[in-house]
């Protein structure tokens, strides 16, 4: 019962804020809604028992990435009036149609999958450590060590690239 209430409230918040992100006229407002959206997603992760991912979601997404967005919005936006939201136009109609099509397709899959019985849940993995953080860490440093290192290289490359790109020509 409590789980259902939590899910529906959080789902409503997530979707509501997401709609606001997309529709807000002022990009700064979009960013604020995006933060709130991510915080709700983090709360959803907590209800799913994924505390570590939730904490990372808040720390990296809400506390890092979106701050970057806010910076850029402010730098780009300071002297210009907020871009007016123009929904009209061929592109927009096409986009909405495409989004609708994707939604219908995905919903069809979901309904179909619901009609057919779900695959039996595989047995829980046995890991030598307990606790969500420890287990995630264990997996990251054993089975997924290579992807983990690749991700760290990716971040390094992104860091260098961002500095090179954003640096002023002098």
């Amino acid at each position, binding site marked *: 019962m409590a789980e259902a209430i939590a899910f529906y409230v959080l789902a409503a918040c997530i979707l509501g804020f997401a709609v606001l992100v997309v529709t807000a006229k*002022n990009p*700064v*407002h979009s960013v*604020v809604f995006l*933060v709130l959206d991510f*915080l709700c997603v983090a709360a959803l992760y907590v209800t799913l028992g994924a*505390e*570590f991912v*939730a*904490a*990372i979601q*808040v*720390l990296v997404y*809400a*506390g*890092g990435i979106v*701050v970057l967005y*806010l*910076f850029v919005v*402010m730098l780009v936006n*300071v002297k210009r009036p907020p871009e007016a939201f123009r929904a009209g136009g061929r592109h927009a109609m096409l986009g909405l149609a495409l989004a609708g099509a994707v939604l219908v397709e995905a919903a069809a899959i979901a309904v179909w999958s619901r009609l057919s019985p779900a695959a039996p849940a595989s047995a829980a993995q046995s890991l030598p450590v307990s*606790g*969500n*953080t420890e287990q995630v860490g264990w997996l990251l440093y054993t089975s997924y060590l290579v992807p983990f290192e690749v991700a760290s290289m990716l971040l390094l490359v992104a860091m260098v690239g961002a500095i090179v790109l954003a640096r002023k020509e002098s």
Partner: protein
Amino acid sequence: MVELVLIPLLKIIVVLNATLLGVTYMVLLERKVIAWAQSRLGPMRVGPYGVLQPVADAMKLMLKEDITPARADKWVFTLAPILSMVPALVVYAVIPFGDQVHLFGRQISLYITDINVGLLYVVSVTSVGVYGIILAGYSSNSKWPLLASLRASAQLISYEIAITLTLVSVVLMSGTLSMVGIVTSQASQGVWYAFIQPTAFIIFFIGGLAETNRAPFDLPEAEQELTGGFHTEYSGMRFALFFLAEYANIIVVSSVATTLFLGGWLRPFPNVEFLSFLGVVPGWCWFLLKSFVFLYLFIWVRATLPRYRYDQLMRLGWKVLIPLAIANLILTAIVKVALA
């Protein structure tokens, strides 16, 4: 029901109220200590020795007109102080003020909750606090606050890295992210982490000064440079929220430092049998005492040092503290593996 709802609710109420009271009296303490450092008396008019000054301040701030500047982004302008206040208060959920006590025939733990990602929770929640500052600067529609908020956010993000790295080396020592677990591991290892992680401790303290925008890193609100910083355009209760958030953050940093490095509620030298008579003093008293030492240090530093310049602050953060923290982390890991 009592266990599940009532006791946590009571704890939340007590902690929130104690925090807010502590914050207001932190302001008074600061004014008094700085006054003594400067051979002044500080507030003396309201109540004996000015002890009721916070009440008067609160009254004043509540009664003041709450001005929204023309052409300000009204919603964001209202949201910003809330966004900086809420994270500052929410962090107290995981801070262990003491061990368990017997009260009304029940075992009551002196913390709201103990979650297994406690330290990550602290770091992530405080990282959200930066939004209040950025949005305040943006929404004021004024140039000085904008400059200040850009300064503040760059500063917060830079020093957060150094702080988080020091926290990782503490976690390496304790093997747990739970705040209570960190204290108990200090008890079982018989030493405060300040003694085996002195570098981390110092980096944490310096980073804490910068995180809370305190002197000598108080650039975002440097009155002499930026006419007051990101809250220049704020007045009344909304200004008070920023003010409270700042001091609440100072108390958070002190509490976290106490928990991680000074053994939380443990008595000094928890492994020395000879000093066991110190155990007479309840744990939460030790906790408050240690936090108080930090608060005093914060104020003392403010009364003594000039302010860094922005580029020097960034240089200190990126070229000194972060490399030091990384080196300390690697060293800790090596020693840990070598001993294991």
